[in-house]
């Protein structure tokens, strides 16, 4: 998240991840620091820090 909102803020960034409690895959796409796509739609993520 630090990268997405910092060094990579002007880039389109895809993050492939997974739920730590299961084997479910998560894909988030950011463009210029903002989320433009999340799969699955039920994904909960926190943008924080500072």
């Amino acid at each position, binding site marked *: 998240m630090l*990268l997405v909102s910092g060094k990579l803020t002007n880039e*389109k960034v*895809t*993050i*492939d991840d997974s739920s730590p409690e299961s*084997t479910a895959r998560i894909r988030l796409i950011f463009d210029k620091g903002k989320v433009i796509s999340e799969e699955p739609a039920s994904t909960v993520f926190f943008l924080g820090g500072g």
Partner: protein
Amino acid sequence: MLSVRCKYSLMLAASGLLLFARTAGPAVNQGQLNGQEQKVIDYLVNDWGQDFSVTSVDIAMTALRVEQSDETRFRMGSYIKAHPELHEVIRRWGWVTLVLTADEKLIARALINAEREGKPEPTIAEIAKAVGVSESQAKRGLVMLERYEILKPDAKTGGAGYTVVPHYIKWEPRLDFVFHKVSLDNGRQFNTN
């Protein structure tokens, strides 16, 4: 002129040295990589730590367009496992983070979560479904996890026929076997911590 006794002593000492050299040899040779594999390791050592990178072997191989096989990945993974002195990232995040693919991590988690929660061990079909891979890929992943001594075969468990080595059951629940793969539009891919 050397006495016979002295000659024997010297020969014994020399054979002792040879024995030592032969014993020490395979451990070193086992870790030797071919040129292409060394290139992947060099790429990783240079990449790790940049932008919080904890890039894994498979991603480095893709970046370098090196043909992948389970065997080559295992050779490089074993090298990383045996050489934590290569980079602080190995020591801080552990070799498991760096040598397993995302699929292998999820397969490990499927078994570990079941065991932690006291559920029956999932079958290969159940693992494949949970992770979103084919049964053949699930089997290959299980074999790789066995080779890294994360799983051990155990026919008594039912399911896929493996148990998790106790160390990994107790190992950082919810923080283990995670991955965060970053892909940029310019094609660069890396894992972050």
